[in-house]
């Protein structure tokens, strides 16, 4: 027993110095400001979480709830209708289904027409503005300038320019001898030319700036190496610049697809959805149904379908460009 206890004591005493050395160390590590407590990150996230929760999470969840009801703010009852709002959107022949898919089609057309241009033109512009020449900063500012305008300014400005009967553009075309007035805002295909053109003019500056930042981070040594290997301008663009820009291109593509799919102001202000609701985009229709007709349940259901589609498209973007990377 004594032995045991002695050993025990000895054992207890022997490591004691070690413990003694270790414990302040340990204590320091625990209490060190560099080793945060488990909840520290949440405290830092709290302000954003609060905003995110109030303005994104709660509305998103209550949107799901609304979409299951026939929800008019101003009527006392909001009868539960289950998935009826969604079913309505997939019932062939139903008015709302027709109108909704027509508006989705408009959004789709706009994305297909505008995204390639908003990818290619700003890239070309960025390549140009990345050259060294006099007045480079001035031109960078000039091409970016329209982006700072609000959509209402852009809408009003181009309304004056594009109006079929009283617009400046048709006025000048007439002086150049074009006798037939071009219905820029009232007939296909001109409405799409106008909407896509205005959008490209308005937002290409932003994409250019993003490309430009990407271009400036491409290692010069790669170009030198390519030159040594006998690569010409096009080969350098194709084999050095574009691969180096891939993450930037992915970012620009994703943002541009989302922005184009959410197009609202241009159609609303320039064409008003004309002709025949041809240019009434999904967001425009959702706003009309939800905020003008107060059919909030239906509008929420439509928003979810649109959001789902955009999530799928964004995921495909990532998948597609990531596969290429490997």
């Amino acid at each position: 027993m004594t032995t045991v206890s002695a050993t025990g004591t000895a054992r207890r005493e022997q490591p004691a110095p070690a413990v003694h050395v270790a414990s302040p160390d340990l204590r320091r590590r625990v209490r060190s400001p560099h080793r945060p407590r488990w909840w520290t990150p949440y405290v830092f996230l709290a302000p954003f979480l609060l905003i995110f929760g109030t303005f994104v999470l709660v509305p998103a969840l209550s949107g799901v709830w609304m979409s299951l009801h026939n929800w008019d703010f101003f009527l006392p009852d909001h009868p539960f209708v289950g998935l009826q709002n969604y079913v309505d959107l997939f019932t062939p022949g139903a008015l709302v289904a027709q109108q909704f898919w027509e508006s989705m089609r408009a959004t789709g057309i706009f994305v297909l027409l505008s995204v390639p241009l908003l990818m290619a033109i700003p890239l070309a512009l960025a390549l140009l503005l990345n050259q060294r020449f006099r007045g480079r900063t001035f031109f960078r500012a000039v091409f970016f300038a329209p982006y700072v305008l609000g959509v209402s300014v852009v809408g009003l400005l181009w309304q004056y320019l594009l109006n079929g009967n009283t617009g400046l553009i048709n006025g000048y075309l007439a002086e150049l001898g074009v006798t037939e007035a071009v219905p820029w805002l009232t007939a296909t295909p001109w409405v799409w030319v106008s909407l896509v053109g205005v959008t490209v003019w308005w937002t290409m500056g932003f994409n250019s700036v993003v490309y430009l930042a990407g271009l400036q981070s491409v290692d010069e040594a790669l170009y030198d190496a390519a030159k040594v290997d006998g690569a010409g301008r096009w080969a350098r663009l194709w084999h050095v610049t574009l691969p180096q820009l891939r993450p930037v291109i992915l970012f620009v593509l994703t943002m541009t697809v989302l922005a184009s799919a959410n197009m609202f102001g241009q159609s609303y202000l320039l064409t008003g959805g004309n002709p025949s609701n041809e240019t009434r985009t999904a967001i425009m229709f959702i706003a009309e149904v939800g905020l003008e007709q107060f059919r909030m349940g239906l509008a929420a259901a439509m928003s979810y379908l649109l959001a789902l589609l955009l999530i799928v498209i964004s995921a495909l973007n990532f998948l597609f460009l990531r596969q290429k990377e490997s």
Partner: protein
Amino acid sequence: MPQVAGTYDGPPVTLRFWNGLTGGDGPVMRTLIEEFTVAHPNVRIDMYALPWGDFYQKFPAAVVSALAPDLALMHNFQVATNAARRVIMPVDEVLGTVGLAEEDYLPVVWGSGVYRGQRWSLPLDMWPDSLFYNRRVLEQAGLDPDAPPVDRAGYESALDALASAGVRGHWLPAIDPQGVGRGFDSLLWQLGGTHYDDAGRAATWAGPEGVEALAWQQSLIRQGWSPSDVSGSDANVAFKNDQNAFLWGGPGALINDLGQVDGLDWDVAPLPRIGTQRAAFSGSHQFVVARQQSFDADRLAAVVTFLGWILENSLGWASAGPVPARLPVLQDPGLQDLPAQAHVAQGVEHIRFYPLVPGIAEVQTTILYPAVGDALLSLGDPRAALETATTQASFLLTENAEKYGEA
């Protein structure tokens, strides 16, 4: 609602009055309110004007959130909708106190505030679509500027004369949420057609009258009497620049607008009779009492006092453009001081209103008007356009009947 009798003479109250008078009509209403306050110093009125579109969104929201104003002004074709939404109150009980009598109004106007056997609104004015004409343009084309056309033959020959003089005489808007459809409305009624069946459950505008009305509108473009792809603002700009002779529109929007253009020589007359009978689309601003969670007898008495006063003094409102709804006021010689309004008033006996069906304005502006606009842009088959719109409308009419039916 508490009982109210006679003029309010209690302690000072401040009423909240909402409306959509954001144009030239706003200051006119404010002046009238000032005059009222001079006569009734114990009642102050805070007027809050917001664009009509916003008004129809925010007014019901305010009522539901217990932030309702005391009274408001709204369009006749929105009264049934808001009655069904239960955001306004029946006003039958205060009719006598306000001094409203059936014989003082045109039947269509008197009936326009009655929904499900109760009266919900008090008509202030009428704004029939009328024929605004540019006198100088008519004169230059060899037409008599003092005798605007009154029937179809006269109208078409005037347009021919104008065309020979190189002027497209009737710029017909194909894109304009308001201007497009109201011309069609008037023509449909002139040809003896109707928009809806009696129950307000089905659209009837695709009948022969509707087809003829739309075909006539298309003929204006086909004949070159109107350019194609016209928007409401184009027609207006052309008129002000002596490039357009005729505008069909309401006095509320146009009288002050045209009156501000220096050197423009214009006048206004009732719409010409293109169909078999005279008729013109008209709207009417009507006072409503907002539903409160609990009514204060003093405030309500003050509201009634104001309504009685302003309907009595609605001649002052005429300078905003619309003409008074109350016939004795309309026949007041004072109206002759406003020649344009006096000319508009000559056509009031032929005015037509939309039927009193909740949600009807939405059917008109989201289904019929776009269909008319499309037909004017594409010059496609009018019958097909109107039949498609009939099918579309049946969905909305059924949905509205269900939505407002039980409310």
